[in-house]
């Protein structure tokens, strides 16, 4: 580790801030308690996960070294391939759909300067603070055979469409995915509203003088202006979708069959139910790498486009 040169710092921090009165060890003393705890309960287990992922272990008997066997299994095991496929589908439901809706919604609200905006903001953000377990209970009741959704369908004469949504091989995945859309949309909208509030009014006035309509205004002014916010929104929601465990645990437990299982659920299932601890660790490590790469990629793309 080298001392990092900081000439580029623009804040004009005091020269040699750790110098004079302070002791050279001072910064380390301030960081040490946090670092020790953080290293013991985050860095060390992370390293141990990488190590464990190279073994076949049932959690009780002796482990056997299998090299990258647990990782190649990610491509060969049907259930795991399905899990990662569903994770991709959930990215659409948790991130892409909310960003689409959020963009239009925030643009409409910004353009209209509607009253009641702050109340609306408070309401759409609400799903973000409700425990996912509670959200799951609420939606499970809505999707139940005699739940709100089926009653609504029956009341408009669409009895043929009613079904046990979460027990259906085809519809359980979108049903669970839409819960994610419900949770994410508010966050994305509020984030984009904040970004759009910063667009100078003159930009809109100039566009209108040029005769631009709402659609052109949306494409040429609003969307490019909130690129940074959109990046943050995508990163947050994609990561949230990949970390979703409680929703699956509570609503479908991955079923029916393996039709809604996701990597994070497979980590739990394999480590604590089916005795495939090494495989679980490998999935966890892969998930971290994917999250890291996606975060990097989304930020790269938005930088290059700017």
């Amino acid at each position, binding site marked *: 580790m080298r001392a990092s040169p900081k000439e580029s710092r623009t804040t004009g*921090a005091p020269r040699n801030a750790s110098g004079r009165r302070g002791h050279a060890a001072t910064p380390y003393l301030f960081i040490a308690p946090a670092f020790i705890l953080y290293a013991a*309960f*985050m860095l060390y287990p992370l390293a141990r996960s990488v190590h464990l992922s190279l073994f076949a272990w049932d959690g009780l008997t002796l482990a056997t070294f299998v090299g990258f066997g647990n990782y190649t299994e990610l491509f060969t095991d049907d259930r795991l391939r399905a899990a990662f496929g569903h994770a991709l589908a959930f990215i659409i439901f948790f991130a892409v759909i909310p960003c689409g809706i959020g963009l239009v919604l925030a643009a409409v609200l910004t353009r209209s300067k509607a009253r009641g905006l702050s109340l609306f903001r408070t309401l759409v953000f*609400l799903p973000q603070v409700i425990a996912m377990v*509670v959200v799951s209970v609420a939606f499970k009741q809505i999707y139940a055979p005699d739940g709100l959704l089926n009653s609504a369908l029956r009341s408009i004469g669409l009895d043929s469409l009613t079904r046990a949504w979460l027990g259906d091989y085809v519809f359980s995945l979108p049903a669970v995915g839409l819960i994610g859309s*419900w949770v994410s949309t508010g966050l994305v909208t509020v984030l984009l509203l904040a970004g759009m509030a910063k667009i100078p009014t003159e930009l809109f006035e100039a566009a209108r003088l040029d005769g631009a309509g709402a659609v052109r205004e949306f494409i040429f002014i609003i969307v490019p202006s909130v690129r940074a916010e959109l990046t943050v929104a995508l990163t947050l929601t994609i990561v949230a979708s990949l970390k979703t465990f409680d929703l699956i645990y509570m609503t479908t437990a991955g079923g029916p069959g393996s039709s809604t299982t996701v990597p994070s659920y497979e980590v739990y299932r394999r480590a604590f139910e089916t005795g495939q601890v090494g495989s679980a660790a490998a999935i966890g490590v892969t998930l*971290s790498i994917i999250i890291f790469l996606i975060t990097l990629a989304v930020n790269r793309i938005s930088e290059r486009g700017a």
Partner: protein
Amino acid sequence: MRVSPSERTLNYAILIFFSVVVLTPVFSIVVTAFAPANAAAARAGAFHPENFAQAWVQGRFGTYMATSVLIAVIVVSLALVLSVMAGYAFGTMRFRGEQVLFYLFLLGIMVPSEAIIVPLFFDLRTFGLTDTPWAVALPQVAQSIAFGTYWMRAYFKSVSPSIMDAARVDGASKGRILVSILVPMGRPAITTMIVLMFMWTWNEFLIPLVMSPSGEFRTAPLGLAFFQGQYTQGTALLAAAAVMVALPVVILYFLMQRHFIRGMLEGAVKE
């Protein structure tokens, strides 16, 4: 900016439509929570606030809520003090390895619980630490420290160096400057951090699920999951329990929504 009346109507329609979409699941669970729990209760009337008391007792939510409070107190207080200290060093001092150390902390914001939970469980079990509040709390302290250090560093960097210089000239030590000047000045940033840490800890599911296999230190969300599995007939009591589990954070949100929204929007890593 002028907007035509028809467009205005359309805008309000959109606003109302999305508000209804957001509120429907919320209202439906609240309404269900007050609905009759069984046929006998249905004969007695349509409004049943006693569901909450019944769910509280049947689901042992007194115990679970107490555990949740205990865990939240441990996580928030420890993570708060440690993050403020670490953030202070990163934000105001320069030292060897600063960048490497800071990136190590940032890593923790991205790493999902799924990536650490497996070895954590087996290692803590070896030490006999599973089924203690520490097994449930300490991994969450580590996660909160990652965010807290990042968040506090940003605050300390934003403080004008002249304030610290003035205090230093007056002979104040580094610790003193932190405690008597910077922390009081940073109350808004610190409040935001506390509120977020509390919410994350209260709502956390995977870590308490795994770390207390006997169920002795089951937090409120876990109590709800367990209640769902055990209580299958009818939905009213389950809904009442769900409302109770969500309520502490939701009330806090309505009281301090600025902190929630600001924290969750600005807390996103943008380096």
